[in-house]
């Protein structure tokens, strides 16, 4: 998969598979799923978090891939096209659960959940602290960090998947990292925010 862990080159294999899926080839569907399942599962777990719901959204995403395969026009990679579907499905599910983007009040509540300096000292583990704080970021910030760091999507691939301007992708990433630093400061790690 181009741009994701378990890469398979430049994405031409996925395009060929998708063409076969569009022709109703179940074997191609299975193969495409095998290639996509881990990156999609990791992505959705970061967004939706509940395993049962993640598997529902993964199922819905792949059903949509089956339905829409013939409509893929190659304007973006197969990878970003499928992630775009997954993104919309996840947002839709979370909206139904009334857990869309965090508002200020929720964000404030989350700040309160950040580990205290004492807790930080007890763990003595910066990596674990950063990992825990990443989980406390908003949906949008978790998503952008995951797509850039884990999936290794380029700016343009993220822009394609999330239907955002490239500059917005860069600034969103910047603010996600700034937010992480603020949470680190609140946890007693000094010198994070310039």
């Amino acid at each position: 998969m181009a741009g994701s862990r378990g890469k398979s080159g430049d994405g031409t294999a996925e395009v060929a598979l998708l063409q076969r899926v569009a022709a109703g080839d179940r074997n191609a569907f299975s193969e495409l799923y095998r290639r996509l399942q881990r990156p999609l599962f990791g992505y959705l777990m970061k967004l939706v978090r509940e395993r049962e719901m993640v598997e529902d959204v993964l199922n819905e995403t792949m059903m949509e891939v089956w339905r829409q395969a013939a409509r893929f026009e190659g304007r973006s990679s197969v990878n970003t096209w499928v992630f775009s579907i997954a993104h919309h499905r996840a947002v839709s599910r979370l909206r139904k659960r009334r857990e869309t983007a965090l508002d200020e009040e929720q964000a404030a509540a989350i700040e309160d959940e950040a580990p205290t300096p004492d807790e930080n000292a007890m763990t003595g583990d910066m990596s674990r602290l950063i990992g825990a704080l990443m989980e406390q970021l908003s949906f949008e910030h978790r998503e952008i960090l995951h797509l850039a760091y884990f999936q290794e999507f380029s700016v343009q691939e993220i822009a394609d998947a999330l239907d955002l301007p490239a500059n917005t992708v860069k600034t969103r990433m910047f603010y996600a990292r700034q937010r992480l630093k603020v949470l680190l400061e609140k946890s007693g790690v000094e010198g994070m925010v310039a």
Partner: protein
Amino acid sequence: MTQRTTGQPQRTETALPLTEEDVLELLPWYASGKTTAAETAAIEQKLNANPRLQAELKLVRQEKQISVESVKALGEPNPDLLNKMLGQLDGVRQLPPLARDAAEAQPGFLARLFGFAPTPALRFAMVAACLLIVAESAALLKLTGGGTEESYQTASAPEAATGPELIVHFQPDAKLSAIAMLLSDLDATVVKGPMPDGAFVIALQKDADASAAMTVLRGHADLVAGVDQGS
């Protein structure tokens, strides 16, 4: 502009005139080898002379490693999921490809969403009306502009539905992409609108159950303000 690249950062003779802030924004992609050769050269030039940026890159790499490890710890999806999906495929109708002529004429998102290619005047009116009902005006304008990227082409086909019609009022803050996905789920196309009161007429597939579709639409109160039976 960052481009799609898959290799490691490459050096080039020409470095871009990036500011420190530009470099800060690009470091996450530099760490993954996803910056262009020109960006990479400029970033490395700045990095060599700037301890603050070097510290920032170290933090980016730490965040990246944590991100990767956290996903590895999540495990894998249920192995039975593929069989479950394969069992569902017969019940999922595959959509035909978009007509090439229509695609080349760049009817854009509205044509796919609305099931017909609007005239320029009508298109303007539709866009203007949609701007009143859709909060994502920037995204809408991008989608309606010819030749732009449309990463999720969910919206319904030029192959317009010819079944029962419903009159739908969408919520003022409904996102266009969410509306498109809902209509796609229903195999419905917008055949008329916006009406003077802001409503749209959507058509279902020939054998579709209008009552069931109305129930589905009403279940999406965050997107649909009201729905009535049409002609």
